[in-house]
C-alpha cells in the first residue's frame, strides 16, 4: 500500500518538476525579449517578468503612433541645423540609411536625456487606475528605485495615504478631458529610497519626497481603450539658486504672515521689507487668486513644499504684478531629537518670481493701496 503511494507521489513530483521546468523556460524566453540589460534580466522574479511585459505592451500600444521619427530627422538634416550634441549632422544624402538611423538613435537618446535632465525630473505615465505604466529610467535618481522595480506597480503603493484622494481626483478623466488633453498640475508625496547621500536604501526605510507633477491626459490606441496621464514629476528642491533680478525671498509664519522679506521686494513691489512684516499674504493679493493661495498654503501645511502657480500681488499704491512662489516649510531652529515634544517653531520660506511688469499701476483695488497713494 505504502509502496504504491510512494510510486504515485514520485510520479506526480516528476510531473510537477517537468511542468515547472517548462514554465521556467517560457518565463526565460519572455524575459529575454524584454528591453533590459542581461544583468537585470537574470534577477527578475516571475511576477516581475509579467509585470514588465505588461508595461512593455501597454507602453507600446499607448504611446506609439506618433510622428515618424525619420521624417523629422531628415528634415533637420536638410536644413543643416546643429543639435545640442554638437555632433553636426553629416551630409547624408540618403545613401547611408543605416548610419543615419544610428546617428538618429544616438541623438534622440541624447536629446531625451537632456530633456529629462533639464526638467530635473522623470516621466511617468499613469493609467486611470493608478498603474505606473511607464517610467523613464532616470526615476532611480529621484526615488532610489529602478525603472524595473517600479514599472507596472500601482502609484498608490508608493505615495502618502493622505494624498491618495487628491491623486484619485487627478486621475479621474472624462472622455472629453482625455480628448482635448486636459492638463494636470498637483503636488504629492512619494516614497524615496534614497539616503541623504544619494545612495539607494531599502524601501522599508523610505522617506517621503515631495513631487510636483505636471502633464496632460492622453488618449490611447486599441486594443483596450484606456486613457492615461502623462506627467513629468519633479522633486521640489529645498535650496534655491537665486539670481539677482525679479525674484525675492521672504519668510512667513505658518499663517502666511510675513516675518522677513529681502530688500529686492522694494523695486519690484514698492513695499519696504518693514512694511510687510506682520501682514498676511492674503491681504496683499488679488481676491480672485484666493483659491490659488489657499491651495498653496494647504500644500505647505501637509506636504511641506509647494509651487503656487501664477497669482497677482498688489503693488504699493496701485496696480499688481503676476508672480509665482516656490515655498517650503522649514524649522526655524534645528529640531533636537532629545526634546521631541518641545515646540519647534516652523516657518515658511518662499522664493517669489515676478513674472510680469506692473499692470494697471493707477488702479487701486485694495484699501491698503489707497493709504499709500501719494507715497510711492
Amino acid at each position, binding site marked *: 500500500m505504502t509502496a504504491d503511494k510512494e510510486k504515485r507521489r514520485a510520479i506526480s513530483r516528476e510531473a510537477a518538476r517537468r511542468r515547472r521546468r517548462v514554465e521556467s523556460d*517560457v518565463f526565460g524566453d519572455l524575459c529575454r525579449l524584454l528591453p533590459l540589460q542581461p544583468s537585470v534580466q537574470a534577477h527578475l522574479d516571475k511576477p516581475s517578468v509579467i509585470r514588465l*511585459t505588461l508595461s512593455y505592451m501597454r507602453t507600446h500600444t499607448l504611446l506609439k503612433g506618433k510622428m515618424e521619427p525619420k521624417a523629422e530627422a531628415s528634415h533637420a538634416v536638410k536644413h543643416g541645423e546643429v543639435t545640442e550634441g554638437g555632433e553636426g549632422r553629416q551630409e547624408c544624402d540618403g545613401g547611408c540609411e543605416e548610419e543615419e538611423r544610428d546617428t538618429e538613435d544616438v541623438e534622440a537618446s541624447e536629446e531625451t536625456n537632456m530633456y529629462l535632465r533639464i526638467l530635473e525630473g522623470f516621466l511617468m505615465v499613469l493609467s486611470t487606475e493608478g498603474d505606473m505604466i511607464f517610467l523613464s529610467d532616470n526615476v532611480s535618481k529621484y526615488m532610489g528605485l529602478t525603472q524595473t522595480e517600479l514599472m507596472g506597480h500601482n502609484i498608490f503603493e508608493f505615495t502618502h495615504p493622505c494624498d491618495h484622494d487628491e491623486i484619485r481626483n487627478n486621475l479621474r478623466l472624462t472622455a472629453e478631458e482625455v480628448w482635448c488633453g486636459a492638463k494636470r498640475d498637483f503636488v504629492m508625496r512619494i516614497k524615496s529610497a534614497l539616503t541623504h547621500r544619494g545612495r539607494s536604501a531599502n524601501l522599508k526605510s523610505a522617506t517621503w519626497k515631495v513631487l510636483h507633477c505636471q502633464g496632460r491626459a492622453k488618449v490611447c490606441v486599441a486594443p483596450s481603450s484606456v486613457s492615461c496621464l502623462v506627467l513629468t514629476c519633479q522633486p521640489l528642491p529645498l535650496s534655491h539658486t537665486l539670481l539677482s533680478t525679479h525674484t525675492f525671498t521672504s519668510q512667513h509664519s505658518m499663517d502666511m504672515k510675513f516675518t522677513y522679506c529681502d530688500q529686492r521686494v522694494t523695486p519690484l513691489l514698492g513695499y519696504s521689507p518693514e512694511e510687510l512684516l506682520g501682514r498676511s499674504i492674503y491681504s496683499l493679493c488679488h481676491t480672485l487668486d484666493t483659491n490659488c493661495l489657499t491651495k498653496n498654503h494647504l500644500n505647505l501645511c501637509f506636504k511641506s513644499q509647494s509651487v503656487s502657480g501664477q497669482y497677482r500681488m498688489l503693488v504699493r499704491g496701485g496696480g499688481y504684478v503676476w508672480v509665482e512662489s516656490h515655498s517650503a516649510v522649514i524649522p526655524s531652529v534645528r529640531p533636537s531629537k532629545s526634546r521631541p515634544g518641545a515646540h519647534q517653531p516652523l516657518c515658511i520660506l518662499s522664493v517669489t518670481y515676478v513674472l510680469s511688469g506692473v499692470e494697471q499701476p493707477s488702479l487701486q483695488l485694495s484699501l491698503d493701496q489707497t493709504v499709500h497713494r501719494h507715497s510711492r
Partner: protein
Amino acid sequence: MSARNAAAGGGDRAGGERAEDVLVEENQCSSMSLTSLMTPSSAAGMSLNMEIPRKRKGSMDSQDRKTASTPDADMEDDQNGSDEDDQHVKIKCFREPHSQIEKRRRDKMNNLIDKLSAMIPTCNPMSRKLDKLTVLRMAVQHLKSLKGSGSSFSEANYKPSFLPDEELKHVVLKAADGFLFVVGCDRGKMVFVSESVTKILNYSRAELIGQSLFDYIHPKDMGKVKEQLSASELYPRERLIDAKTGLQVQADLPVGAARLCSGARRSFFCRMKYNKISVKVEEKEFQASTSKKKESQKYCTVHCTGYMRSWPTSQLGAVGEGESDKQDSSHFSCLVAVGRVHSHSSPQVNGEVRVKPTEFITRYAMDGKFTFVDQRATTILGYLPQELLGTSCYEYFHQDDLPQLADRHRKVLRSKEKIETNCYKFKTKHGSFVTLQSQWFSFVNPWTKEVEYIVSTNTVISHDHCRTSRSGNKSEQSSNSKTSEEDGKKSLPVIPGISTTPGSMIYAGSIGTQIANELLDFNRMNSSPSSGSVSPFSLPQDKCQQTHSQISNNVPNGEAADMEMPGKSSSEEEPQGATFSGGESLMGENSQLDLDSVVGPGLSNLSNDEAAMAVIMSLLETDTNLGEDVGFDEMHWSL
C-alpha cells in the same frame, strides 16, 4: 512544511505525522484553495480542471521545501502559525500560516496572468479561459511581433529601453508642454528649436531658427533674459538659500575667464510672443508675417529652465559662421533650455474668464468695510474702487435690505459655507439703486482658522428676476427677528429703529461693526483653554464640542511625538493617515478647506500641536542634504 499545512488545514496538530499524511494534507490544501478560488475575488469563470495543476504545483513546491527544512524548525513555526490571525498583512511575518502566503502569491500570479491575457490580441477573442502556460507562450509570440515592427533592438550598442527615445522625447515634450531651444549667449541667436514650439507659440520652427531670441521676448523682460545669458565675468554671483537656516549664502562659482562654466543652471520666467496668426510654412512669407506680428502682440509666460553649455566651435556646422564676436574663438556658449508654458491662465488672459461681465468681486473686513474692490465695480456702481475702500457696505445697502443682509453677515462669519443673499439694492454713485445678488463666504486662514476677510461675488440682477425673491425677503424680515431671539444673540437694536432720514446712513455703518464685535465676544466666551496662543490645527470656535474632546485627548508631550515621528518617516507600512478630503475642494470652487477632516484617527490622539509637528517633522527629516553638494556637473539644483 507539512506541519504548516496541517495547521492551515484547520487542525491544531502537534506536528509529527508528515510523511504518511502528505497526500491527505495536499488534498486538504487543494480543497481549501479550491473553495477560495471559487470566491468572486479570484478571477471569474475559472474552470476547475485548470486550477488543480496549478495548485498542486504550489503545494508540491512547499512539500519539496519541507524535505529540505529541519523538522524542528517546522515544529516551531507550526506552533506559532496556528493560532495567529494577525491582519497586518503588509508585514509578512512567519506568524502567518504559510498557505496564506502561498495563496496570496498564487492569486497575485493569477491576476497578472489575467491582465496579460487581456493585453494580448490573440488571447482576447478566446471564450474560455486559457491556462497559464498558454498565455505565457502567447505573450512571447506577441512580444516578438512587437519587436519585429520597426523597433531596432538588435544593435549591439543600443541601450535597451521600454520606449524608443524618439517617442520618449515626444512624450516628454507633450507632458511638459514645452519646447527645447538652444540660444547662443552672445547675441541670443536661436540655433535650435524643437518642433513642439509650433504648438506652443504658434510659430514654425523655420521662422524661429536663426532669429534672435530677443525679438520674441517682451521688451520689459529683455534685461532679465540678457542677464541670464550673460557670459561675462562680472556675472552676479549666485545666491543660494540654505533651507536649514533660511539665510542666503554666497556661492563661489568657478567662473572661467571668458565663458560660463558648463552646467550652470538657469531658471527664469519670461514673456514670449505668441503668434495669433496661423503659421506660414514657406519662408518667403516670413516678411509678411513679421509686419503682421506687430499687430498681434500677445504674450504668454514661459518658464525656461536649463543649463549653460559650451562647445568647441570646430564641431559645429553652419552656425559658427555668422558668429564674429565670440570672445573665445574656440568655444560657443549657449543656453540649452526647455520652455514650458504654464497650465494656469497666462497673464494676458485675465484669469477672470469664467466670470461674467456683470459680476464683480469685493472683499470686506469682518465689520463690513470694503478692503478690496475689483475694477469692474466701477462700470456697475459708478464708484472708483478708492471711493468705496474703507467705507462700510451698509452705507450703500437699501434700508429695506439691511435686516436680511445683516443676518447674512452674521451667518457668514460663523459658517464655512458660501452664503447667498437675496436680491438687494445697492446705491450707485449717482443716487440710483442697482439690484445685486451676492454670494458671500468668509475666507479663513487655513492655518489659524481665523477669518481673514469676507469675499463677495456680486452679480447684477435685472429687476424682473428679483420680484419673487423680494417677497421672500419680506417674510425673511419677520423670521429674522424670531431667529435672532431664539439664538439668544443680541438682537440688532438698529433694525426697528431705522428711519428713512439721511442720518440713518451713518448709523447703518455701525451695523457691520456691531456684528463683527458680536463675533469677537462670542469667540471670547467660548474660547477653550488651549487656544491661548494660536496653535495650528486648532478647531474653529463654534465647534465647541470637538474642541473639548481634543483637549481631553491630550497625550503627554514627549511620548506622542516620539511615537509618531519614527513611525511616519521610516516604515513602509502606511501610517495612520487621515484622508485628505480636501482634495476635491481644492480642485473645485469651494473656498473653505477643512483641516478638521484631515486630522484622522491616528493624529487626533495627539494634541493639535503635536499632530502638526509630527506630520511636518517627518517630512523635513528626510532632507538634510541641503545645499551642501552643489555639484555643477550634476546639473540639477541641490537638494
